[in-house]
């Protein structure tokens, strides 16, 4: 029983035991959480993955799957990821904003954006917008098109939440 995992920057997939795999996923999840407020957290995560890959290559013996012990030692050496900039808890956050969201969108991602902004369920939002479309005889369609042009695009709901929670004026 073994898992394979791809790491950013490396073309090969790394073989590891399920326990080692779980350990690594947990480590990366913690790192992501620690870097949540950093504007380039994703970039740092890619760097971390790439360095884990480098170390796995130099630690590997005959391409045997990485064991839990090896993985633990390696992650201990790399150390817990801590944010590079001081905690942003005291700086004002950007707060909620209107946008349209790409991942999971039906048409322009407007309903997703409205749902994320207002913390509503997206299926309800869509139903309401469709009803309005019928009731207004299509007029809301023009509003929709206008929003399509003016609202900023955000890739995923998670990305929206990250932007919302990060400082107002990221450097």
């Amino acid at each position: 029983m073994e898992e394979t995992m791809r790491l950013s920057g490396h073309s090969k997939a790394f073989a590891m035991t399920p326990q080692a795999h779980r350990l690594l996923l947990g480590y990366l999840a913690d790192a992501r959480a620690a870097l949540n407020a950093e504007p380039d957290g994703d970039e740092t995560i890619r760097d971390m993955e790439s360095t884990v890959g480098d170390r796995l290559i130099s630690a590997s013996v005959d391409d045997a799957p990485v064991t839990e012990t090896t993985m633990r030692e390696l992650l201990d050496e790399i150390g817990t990821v801590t944010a590079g900039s001081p905690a942003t808890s005291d700086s004002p956050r950007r707060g909620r904003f209107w946008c349209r969201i790409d991942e999971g969108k039906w048409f322009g991602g407007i309903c997703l954006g409205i749902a994320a902004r207002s913390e509503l369920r997206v299926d309800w939002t869509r139903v309401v917008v469709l009803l309005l479309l019928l009731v207004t005889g299509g007029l809301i369609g023009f509003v929709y098109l206008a929003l399509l042009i003016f609202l900023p695009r955000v890739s995923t709901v998670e990305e929206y939440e990250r932007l919302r929670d990060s400082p107002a004026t990221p450097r």
Partner: protein
Amino acid sequence: MESETKLAAIRRGLLEPLVLAAIEHTHRYAAEIATGLRDVGFPVQEGTLYPLLNKLRREGLVEHEWRESQAGPPRKYLSLTRSGRAQLEEFRTYWNDLARMIDTIGN
């Protein structure tokens, strides 16, 4: 133990200037910077170093270029920007001032 904690506080603040100084003359990639710091007796874990490097880039103090490597993936080679150099210079001056203070205050 007590004095170690106090010294650790000073060391922490020195990480950023040391990183800047490590790439003052040569382009280096992150793992080389980590090795360089270890070699001068300032061990730092990647978990601390990598976020810091990205922060420095965000602040416009360092920049990087991608270069192929013989083994493994392409690497980001970091170097100082103009403001990175200015900041390092500022650190050095400040550091010397501090050193002079501790040397002269008792006399």
